[in-house]
């Protein structure tokens, strides 16, 4: 069975989704989703171990050898992203039950789990596939389910947010299809490895245009500044569980796609020297960091604040990629993991506040430091990580990023990264100030969130601290992945 893991990883949640959709009991649908998400995590860990020991795993679906059929191809980069997606899935699912019951109408709950599983399937499928068109198909599975998931939010603005996301997302997907078509028309193949071999021979205006379309399409999905317009609304109005899940997986997988196309398919030589994408990406990333962090400061809704912070954090990842050196890419890939666990912890603690208080506006945070000590402590630790305080994962990624910038001789960039951290201090402080230095003024008795919410949150916080203190494992894998992408080292 071990040799079939790449396929099973995607097929198990895929088959669970239709079952969840016809289940009558909400609890049963949840239990199924939970079991599946843990099974997926186990498989992802096994795969990562195998990849680290044995190198690239290739799996020919249907038994048809690569360019003829579809190939699943897992290297260190994809195994790493797989781990991120799978672990977030595994932590969000136990959290989901209580939170979803509170925020989503009961008759939609089994369907919501089905959609969550489909979204997970899509994201996993994108990550393991070695075929560009297959990537598009799974991208659409994850996107369409994400549109529906966002629309389940309790406010009517969730509908408008989902619609806007749908339009932007479909434009992005169609651009990606155009890009794939242009690569195909020049090479006659859809397999990534095969494309990587054949593209340099046919380098031409068409290939450059394909590159441009793919970049724009993926940036739309990635919410890279200035194509991020759909993100704040979508994250604000979606149910807390959905926000936590999407914020820490969907954009990460989009980063993966970007890296995959830039470095594996087009190759560093073409991307860096012919298209010089780094000089487009670098300024955009910097603007994203500064502008989004400043916008976050003025938000009155903490979910929205965190959403803008996500745009800024995506900027950090893009910055790491744009440096296009081993330390830069390491920083980008490391931040991918680190940001996933800290943002999930932050959004989930806001979900816990939503559960008990019914609002996530800053005013609603007043005095919660004493009323919900565990939840707010988790928020503070997550916030410290976001700022990049030592002993948290945020510090590790910032450290690598600054190192990479200095190594590239870009002192300004290193300084701006630190400025971004200072801005993060300001917006996190606003919440902390309300929670710890103001009195609770509400009429209702507010209690600590139930354990089913707290345990997943604290699991993430623990991971935040553990990998902040002991980064050898994560940084080691990220470095290997970066070396693989740039074609240096092993």
């Amino acid at each position, binding site marked *: 069975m071990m040799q079939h893991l790449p396929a099973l990883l995607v097929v198990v949640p895929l088959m669970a989704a239709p079952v969840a959709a016809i289940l009558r009991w909400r609890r049963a649908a949840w239990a199924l989703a939970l079991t599946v998400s843990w099974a997926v995590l186990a498989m992802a860990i096994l795969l990562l171990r195998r990849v680290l020991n044995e190198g690239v795993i290739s799996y020919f679906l249907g038994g048809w050898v690569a360019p003829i059929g579809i190939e699943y191809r897992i290297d260190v980069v994809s195994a790493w992203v797989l781990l991120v997606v799978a672990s977030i899935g595994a932590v969000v699912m136990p959290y989901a039950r209580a939170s979803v019951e509170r925020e989503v109408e009961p008759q939609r709950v089994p369907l919501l789990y089905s959609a969550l599983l489909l979204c997970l399937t899509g994201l996993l499928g994108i990550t393991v596939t070695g075929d560009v*068109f297959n990537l*598009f*198909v799974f991208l*659409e599975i994850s996107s*369409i389910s994400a*549109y*529906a998931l966002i*629309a389940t939010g309790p*406010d*009517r*603005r969730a*509908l*408008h947010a*989902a*619609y806007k996301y*749908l*339009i932007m997302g*479909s*434009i992005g*997907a*169609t651009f990606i*299809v*155009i890009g794939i*078509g242009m690569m*195909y*028309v020049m090479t006659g193949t*859809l397999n990534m490895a095969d494309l990587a071999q054949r593209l340099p021979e046919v380098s031409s205006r068409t290939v450059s245009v394909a590159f441009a379309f793919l970049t724009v399409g993926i940036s739309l999905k990635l919410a890279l500044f200035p194509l991020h317009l759909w993100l704040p609304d979508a994250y*604000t*109005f979606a149910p807390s569980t959905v926000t936590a899940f999407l914020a820490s997986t969907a954009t990460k997988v989009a980063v993966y796609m970007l890296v995959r196309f830039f470095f594996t398919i087009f190759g560093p030589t073409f991307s860096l020297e012919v298209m010089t994408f780094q000089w487009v990406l670098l300024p955009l990333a910097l603007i994203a960091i500064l502008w989004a962090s400043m916008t976050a400061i003025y938000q*009155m*809704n903490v*979910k*929205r604040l965190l959403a803008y912070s996500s745009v800024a954090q995506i900027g950090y990842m893009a910055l790491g990629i744009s440096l296009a050196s081993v330390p830069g890419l390491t920083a980008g890939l490391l931040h991918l993991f680190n940001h996933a666990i800290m943002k999930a912890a932050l959004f989930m603690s806001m979900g816990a506040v939503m559960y008990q208080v019914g609002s*996530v*506006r800053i005013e609603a945070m007043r005095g919660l430091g004493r009323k919900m000590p565990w939840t707010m402590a988790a928020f503070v630790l997550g916030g410290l990580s976001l700022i990049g305080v030592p002993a948290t994962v945020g510090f590790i990624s910032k450290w690598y990023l600054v190192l990479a910038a200095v190594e590239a001789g870009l002192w300004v960039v290193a300084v701006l990264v630190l400025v971004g951290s200072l801005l993060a201090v300001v917006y996190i402080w606003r919440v902390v100030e309300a929670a710890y230095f103001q009195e609770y003024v509400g009429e209702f008795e507010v209690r600590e969130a139930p354990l089913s919410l707290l345990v997943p949150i604290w699991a993430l916080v623990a991971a935040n601290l553990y990998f902040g203190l002991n980064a050898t494992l994560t940084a080691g894998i990220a470095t290997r992945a970066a070396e693989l992408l740039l074609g240096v080292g092993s």
Partner: protein
Amino acid sequence: MRILGLYNYWVFVFLMMVGFYILISRRNLVKKILGLNIFQTSVFIFYISMGKIIGGTAPILVEGEGEVVYSNPLPSVLILTAIVVGVSTTAVALSLVVRIKEAYGTIEGDEITAMDNEMPPP
């Protein structure tokens, strides 16, 4: 001949531009979806154009005849998938429009934005 050879692709570009224009300039939510459909269909035309061989025939194997040129089956397969994806997106988008109409009473994008802005911030 060079111009003729690219005619199909240029019409694809034109149709794509029309669809894309509807998509980003119109404020009516249903109209936007129509634009999306035209946009996507233009891409289908692009793919199918690249699979065609002049003088070829549909890729359904005929036995016993030696020299038959078949057009490329792969773009057809890809586009079959893309059509299905397109209609799925359309269905979800339309149900969103129905819900938006019920919740807001209008399907004009800018009116909805105005109403969003007048609501208490979340």
